């Protein structure tokens, strides 16, 4: 019975006991079990990419009224495998003058930074890589390594356009980290913990209902961090050839793509965990395996929106994108943080005197936060309306147009 309800921890316990009975010391057997767990988690992340690549291509195709991959396997579901084999046998072409060590390290960095995030994401109450008590801080720290991979790739390629892409990633990926961290502070504040699993436990009402603005800011800034359309300025193919990955070939090039697709799913998983209640759902706490199902339903729902935004939005210009970050998202997040803190504290002070029922307290709290959020949205929309750009400014002088010169006055008379 236990095996059906919670297979992962059942197997882990069984393996642990087996190793202990073989006479290994507890430390060694702990290391072995953890190693196997880490290996399985990594494999799972990688196999998920194979699936999401197919899913994304298929969704793209359907949105654009095409068929998409439909030859290899049912609905073309095995299409990724031939592609993988093909890219696996391609030659590496290293440009002359490239910084060899950094050039080879960059694709590894960009994949592993994303994969590292999966260590703290809880799939179910018991199925979690490790429940760090500083999980959110870890997410922040690991999230910044991805930008490093892009910068290294652009810098080492000995290519001016790659370098320009890398600089843009400094301006973009790094800038969008500020509203992302500010938005992350709000679940931490509401859940009063930095452990990701305890944040999931704290979501009696999903945090997206408590603070829709924070969820939106987090989603948008995560989307910008992935560097995909509409925020794909780092590899804008009509401006920078292919940005930081121009000089890469073979599997090194493929790894950037793996990193990108994995990142797109990772932000959906993070969004599902931090704002949509993670594994929470009916009977999830009694039957952990159901939690996995709830988690992936939510994650794929968010992923669908990520793909939808990618396919339907045009690319932004770099000044527009930075303005959007520094002059809209960051001030909004700061204001939201102050107001959420004050509202939460006042609720804490007032709540005991209201004599509410035990079950009603989370709902009253959620209603309070939601209404404050809606007021902030209304005010923001009003401010945006008054500052709307009414006409496009034309830069530079008007062009000279060939016109017939005025005839001298003497001629007319």
């Amino acid at each position, binding site marked *: 019975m236990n095996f059906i309800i919670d297979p992962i921890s059942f197997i882990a316990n069984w393996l642990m006991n087996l190793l202990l009975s073989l006479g290994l010391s507890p430390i060694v057997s702990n290391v072995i079990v953890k190693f196997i767990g880490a290996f399985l988690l990594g494999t799972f992340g990688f196999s998920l990419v194979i699936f999401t690549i197919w899913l994304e291509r298929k969704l793209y195709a359907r949105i654009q009224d095409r068929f998409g991959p439909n030859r290899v396997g049912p609905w073309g579901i095995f299409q990724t495998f031939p592609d993988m084999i093909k890219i696996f046998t391609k030659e590496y072409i290293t440009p002359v003058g490239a910084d060899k060590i950094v050039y080879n390290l960059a694709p590894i960095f960009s994949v592993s930074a994303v994969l590292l995030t999966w260590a703290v994401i809880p799939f179910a109450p018991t199925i979690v890589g490790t429940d760090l008590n500083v999980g959110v801080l870890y997410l922040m720290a690991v999230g910044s390594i991805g930008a490093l991979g892009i910068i290294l790739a652009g810098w080492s390629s000995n290519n001016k356009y790659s370098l320009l892409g890398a600089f843009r990633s400094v301006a973009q990926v790094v800038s969008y980290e500020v509203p992302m961290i500010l938005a992350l502070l709000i679940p931490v504040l509401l859940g*009063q913990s930095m452990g990701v699993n305890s944040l999931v436990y704290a979501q009696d009402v999903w945090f997206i209902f408590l603070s829709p603005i924070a969820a939106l800011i987090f989603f948008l800034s995560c989307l910008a961090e992935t560097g995909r359309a509409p925020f794909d300025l780092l590899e804008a193919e009509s401006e920078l050839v292919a940005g930081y990955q121009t000089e890469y070939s073979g599997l090194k090039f493929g790894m950037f793509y793996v990193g990108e697709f994995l990142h797109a799913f990772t932000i959906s998983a993070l969004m599902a965990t931090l704002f949509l209640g993670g594994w929470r759902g009916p009977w999830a706490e009694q039957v952990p395996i159901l939690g996995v199902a709830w988690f992936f339903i939510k994650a794929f729902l968010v992923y669908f929106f990520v793909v939808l935004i990618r396919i339907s939005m045009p690319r932004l210009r770099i*000044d527009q994108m930075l303005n959007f970050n520094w002059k809209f998202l960051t001030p909004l997040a700061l204001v939201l943080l102050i107001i959420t803190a004050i509202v939460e504290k006042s609720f804490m002070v007032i709540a005991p005197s209201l004599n509410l029922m035990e079950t009603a307290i989370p709902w009253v709290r959620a209603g309070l936060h939601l209404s404050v959020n809606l007021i902030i949205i209304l005010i923001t929309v009003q401010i945006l309306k008054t500052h709307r750009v009414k006409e496009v400014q034309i830069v530079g002088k008007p062009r000279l147009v060939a016109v017939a010169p005025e005839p001298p006055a003497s001629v007319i008379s």
Partner: protein
Amino acid sequence: MQSDWLFIGLFLLIVALFPGVPILLAGLISPHKSSPTKSQTYECGLETVGDTWVQFRVQYYIFALTFLVFDVELVFLFPWAVAFGQLTIFGLMSGVIFILILFVELIAAWRKGVLEWA
């Protein structure tokens, strides 16, 4: 507690091997037919002109610096947010004033023209 970080350490190793080993293997089985022409920089489809690592626009650097200021200060807010339940009104107000200082910083940077891309 320690075993949590043990997992992170092991995962770090595995995560480095997962992209690293396939790249190495692909390097072994893929063809090696390098030639001077092939290994030239592609760049934009035209012949490369001049050095690559040249002076670049300072604006990128300024944005990175602004980010650094914010990032370092935001990390201080996490302990405040975690201990929010036990905070007194004084604790709440000191946090709010800290965020307001951040806000003033942002406005100062805005007024100074740091956030302009022109």
